[in-house]
């Protein structure tokens, strides 16, 4: 193990931090020592308690037990303001920016320079430009935040933190929303910050990134720190084992099951939003039975609209959609579902479940007109409940019973319930939008296995995901969506994440295995 750090070297030390929520212990007895001027990564799978720990450090939550020491002084943070005053800044996973305010306004908010009672715009602008130049952030103070891309927004967040004089930066899953090129830029920024003597806490579960950028790594599992290592001591598989207690599941398809029978045929699909903007145009693809088509793209490029259009939730302005040879362009969502379209929505809380309804009632959702859920005009409670029992059993939904409300289940179990509900015998096509987002590794492995089973059973699968590893591993072919158009196709066997990243951002020609369509 590494040498024990000198007292003066330590930026932050956490001792015996414990935090309980009703029914769960989010952190128990966490010990963490972070040396000044390093990039310190905290890794752990979803739900391991990383975010809770960071919220404690940032004063958003109070620990039940334990002490926090910052720069050698014991600190108790009652609010983020106290943490900011102690030189700690946080870049949240979901950006904390007001879209309709300018970059300048977002940065200075809460710590505005004043001049005669008013906001001193000139001083603020000068300060931001100076920070931007020092750390290479390329932030333009007078632009509206809503005009900025994801990478730029993140740099605004970093600028915000630096503006407040932070010497310790917490970055919560900063790469989750970035494409590979933007990740490289971010890492460049982080190295600049480190060179200026700042300390960085980098939270992630992407191990290759952690190994690339961190000086030290602390692993959290089930709320406790289980190991502290340096990148030189471990390999990614070893780190994964530390993280989950077993080997990480790998997204991969085995033998090809692709047939030549087209199931889902989309031609020249176009969708216009209420403002008259084209959110999708000239979308054409065919998915055959037993084939998985992966859709890669930076979020907000029309993926959600494509899924909505296929499910009949959003009106189509032109083009056709056919399912098993029948035109369903004008069909209602219900008739599409009855014809065998299965759907895993991207937001299970908003679109997938009634959180306050019981599990068996959620089983009925979307199948309320067909057996076994219904008999004539009435619901068949007994058969629906029996079938829910089957889903709970076969899909390993961990629940005390089928009468508990859906919100009582963990994210992974909710998602398994949805997958089980959608995989009925009638399904011929599956639209899966971000099927493993925010679930633990166990559920992730199970969902991937169910998708493989669906593919084996001859379903045509459309997989939309932001996780490039999942896309490359689970798809038979890949298409890239950019500004509402399919701009490139790749063979997942040969494509590299960087190539996908280039195509996703539209940077340069998408040279390589696939090339433009």
């Amino acid at each position: 193990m590494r040498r024990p750090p000198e007292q003066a070297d330590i930026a932050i030390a956490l001792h015996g931090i414990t935090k309980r929520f009703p029914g769960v212990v989010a952190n128990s007895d966490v010990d963490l020592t972070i040396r000044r001027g390093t990039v310190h990564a905290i890794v752990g799978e979803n739900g391991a308690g990383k975010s809770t720990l960071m919220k404690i450090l940032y004063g958003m939550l109070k620990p039940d037990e334990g002490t926090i020491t910052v720069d050698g002084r014991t600190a108790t943070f009652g609010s983020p303001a106290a943490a900011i005053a102690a030189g700690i800044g946080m870049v949240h996973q979901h950006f904390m920016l007001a879209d309709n305010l300018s970059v300048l306004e977002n940065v200075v908010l809460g710590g505005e320079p004043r001049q005669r009672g008013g906001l001193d715009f000139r001083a603020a602008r000068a300060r931001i430009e100076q920070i931007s130049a020092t750390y290479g952030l390329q932030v333009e103070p007078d632009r509206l935040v809503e005009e900025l891309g994801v990478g730029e927004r993140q740099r605004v967040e970093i600028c915000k933190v630096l503006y407040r004089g932070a010497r310790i930066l917490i970055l919560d899953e900063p790469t989750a929303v970035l494409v590979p090129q933007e990740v490289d830029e971010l890492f460049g920024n982080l190295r600049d910050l480190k060179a200026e003597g700042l300390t960085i806490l980098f939270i992630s579960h992407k191990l290759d990134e952690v190994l690339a950028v961190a000086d030290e790594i602390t692993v959290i599992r089930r709320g406790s720190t289980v190991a502290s290592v340096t990148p030189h001591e471990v390999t990614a598989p070893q780190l994964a084992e530390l993280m989950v207690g077993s080997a990480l599941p790998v997204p991969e398809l085995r033998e090809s099951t692709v047939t030549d029978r087209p199931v889902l045929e989309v031609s020249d699909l176009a969708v216009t939003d209420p403002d008259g903007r084209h959110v999708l145009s000239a979308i054409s693809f065919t998915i055959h039975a037993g084939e998985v088509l992966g859709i890669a793209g930076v979020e907000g490029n029309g993926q959600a609209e494509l899924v909505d259009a296929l499910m009949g939730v959003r009106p189509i302005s032109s083009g056709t959609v056919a399912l098993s040879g029948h035109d369903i362009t004008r069909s209602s969502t219900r008739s599409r579902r009855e014809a065998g379209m299965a759907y895993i929505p991207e937001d299970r809380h908003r679109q997938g479940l009634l959180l306050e309804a019981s599990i068996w009632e959620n089983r009925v959702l979307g199948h309320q007109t067909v057996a076994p859920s219904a008999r004539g005009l009435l619901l068949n409670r007994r058969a629906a409940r029996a079938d829910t029992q089957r889903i709970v059993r076969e899909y390993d939904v961990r629940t005390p019973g089928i009468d508990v409300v859906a919100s009582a289940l963990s994210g992974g179990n909710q998602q398994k319930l949805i997958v089980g509900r959608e995989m009925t015998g009638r399904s011929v096509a599956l639209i899966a939008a971000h099927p493993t987002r925010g679930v633990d590794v166990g559920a992730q492995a199970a969902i991937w296995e169910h998708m493989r089973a669906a593919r084996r059973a001859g379903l045509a699968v459309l997989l939309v995901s932001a996780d490039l590893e999942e896309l490359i591993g689970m798809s038979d072919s890949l298409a890239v969506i950019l500004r509402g158009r399919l701009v490139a196709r790749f063979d997942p066997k040969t494509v590299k994440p960087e190539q996908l990243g280039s195509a996703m951002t539209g940077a340069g020609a998408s040279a390589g295995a696939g090339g433009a369509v």
Partner: protein
Amino acid sequence: MSATGTAVCAGTVLRARRQRISPLGYTGIGLAVLAAVSAVRVATGASDLTSSGTVGAALAAAVPIALAGLGGLWSERAGVVNIGLEGQMVLGTLGAGWAGYQYGPWAGVLMGLLLGALGGLVHAVATVTFGVDHIISGVAVNLVAPGLGLFLAKLVFRNAPGGGQKQSPPVRDVRHLTAPYLTSWLGSLERRQWFLVSDLAAVLRGLTFQISTLTIVAVLLLVATFVVLWWTPFGLRLRSCGEAPYAAESLGVNVRRYKYAAVIVSGAMAGLGGAFLAVSSGQFRDGQTGGRGFIGLASMIFGNWRPGGLAMGAGLFGYTDAMQLRGSDAVHALLLLLGIALLVLTVIQARAGRVVLAAVAGVLGAAFVLWFAATDEVPPELVGATPYVVTLLVLALASQRLRMPKADGQIYRKGDGG
């Protein structure tokens, strides 16, 4: 998700972004509008269309609307929908009547402002502290305030000299100011009935002759609101509570405190609007507000949550309201004016590619022109509805792509974000 969702639309947003109109441009547009009105005046002979009396009356009618709209602006910029403006206005009329007849008009104004602020405080407690749905709380304020007003009126006004069950004793008006020399010169210009020149003189005279000091206060408040909300740290924090309260919270902004401040100021503005009504009409009367709180809210929304926009909306309403008071002749001429305005809108919307809107505006515009041509007067039953119809039509068809504060109307609970 939400953070990234908008990212890619960046290019489109850039293109769609409205062009800034320079002050000179606004002057030009204003003159063009005046020229059109002047042409209609010459054509129809309805001299009331631009008389200084009309303009003065329009200004007086616009002030309570604008004050209610300012109230809405303060509150909604901080993320609280305040449809209780109407009720807070009623409280303002009551306060002005009660204190006004005893201690003079300015005491009445102050009391109206305070009672309005109290109504705002009630709304703030319900929505910010207890997380009650903003609409429900607002409706409650609107229901309770007139009832309370009537009850208190019976209690305190019935036995007062000149008071009654539904009205207060007379209240003196505040002082009215006239620009010296200027108005008589403008008046002589106005009487010449020259195209455009006389109209311009009439407008200027209307804006400088016998202006209530309260009107001047209202205009100053409009400017002050803009300065405070957009140029000060306080205003930035307040607006951030309406756009992204959890982001503000994460930066140490006490969101609740700013929301409280905003909603209380909102109520005070509405109360001031009510006080203006009571003081300028000489007494408190039951039902005096006549929906002006709602109109103010609407003009604020169509004004895109900005002070300039709401002032324009209020001005339009005030103008048509004044017209309606001037008699059916003026209202008849107004038909032609409205028809022309709608036809101009048709062209603007058609050029922007909004076909449906252009068609609706075109059909309505043609209908109004035909109506004008085919009749000699507007049925008296419809005259009273004119201001509402005109304001709604013009604003609804003209304002598109409105952008409300992002977290407007959402219930904020401390610590729920991220």
